[in-house]
């Protein structure tokens, strides 16, 4: 049992520290919250109507997410590769089903435009037809329905 005492210890430590820091911050922090004026970027002048935009590369995260998922799915290929001869046809069907499911996800991503680089396009909910491709086609051709 001794060997698990560290778990306990750490759990307790974590709890104590976390609760301690919360309590301490409640006690020690100055009770006066900074006023709006103090928080404003400029002490005088026009009150900004919106927060200044920060850099947040959504696309970067998106690709990272996609990468992670496909990267990890492949992990199942290794054990399969090791024993695929012994699994015979069953294994083949199994891995094909698996691949198909993963592939479905990929196809979905492609169709959503997640893998397209370039300017970010916002899909406005409620207006399904108005994607960039359909807009472009509509300029070029007269019949949007046919294009869609």
């Amino acid at each position, binding site marked *: 049992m001794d*060997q*698990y005492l*560290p*778990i306990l210890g*750490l*759990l307790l*430590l*974590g*709890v104590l*520290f*976390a609760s301690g*820091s919360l309590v301490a911050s409640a006690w020690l922090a100055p009770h006066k919250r900074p006023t709006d004026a103090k928080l404003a970027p400029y002490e005088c002048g026009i009150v900004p109507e919106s*927060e200044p*935009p*920060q850099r*947040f590369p*959504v696309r970067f*995260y*998106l690709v*990272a*997410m*996609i990468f*992670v*998922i496909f*990267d*990890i*799915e492949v*992990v*199942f290929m290794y*054990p399969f590769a090791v024993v695929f001869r012994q699994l015979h046809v069953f294994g083949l069907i199994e891995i094909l089903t698996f691949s198909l499911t993963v592939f479905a996800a990929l196809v979905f991503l492609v169709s959503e435009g997640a893998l397209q680089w370039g300017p970010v396009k916002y899909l406005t909910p409620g207006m399904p037809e108005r994607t960039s491709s359909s807009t472009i086609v509509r300029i070029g051709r007269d019949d949007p329905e046919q294009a869609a």
Partner: protein
Amino acid sequence: MNVPASWYLILAAVLFGIGAFGLLTRRSALIMFMCIELMLNAVNLTFVTFARTLSDIGGQATVFFVMVVAAAEVTVGLGIVVAVFRRRSSTSVDELSELKG
């Protein structure tokens, strides 16, 4: 050199504890994810260790599943963070307290 299994277990426990600790203390949603990942990996280490002491392949196989689940969680989590960030321009979870009571 033969490292006793209990060391691995203790290491895993410590990792798990650090993860839990981080989750309680950090404000950034992204770092909180990382903490969850850390906890899951500590679990993996535990599984592998036990698999070895028990000479049972099951524990190792479980690790695969846990890894995949961890990856899927990251993906979903990042998606949600992105959705939140688009509105809030911040990933601090302390700013998300509109729902309460």
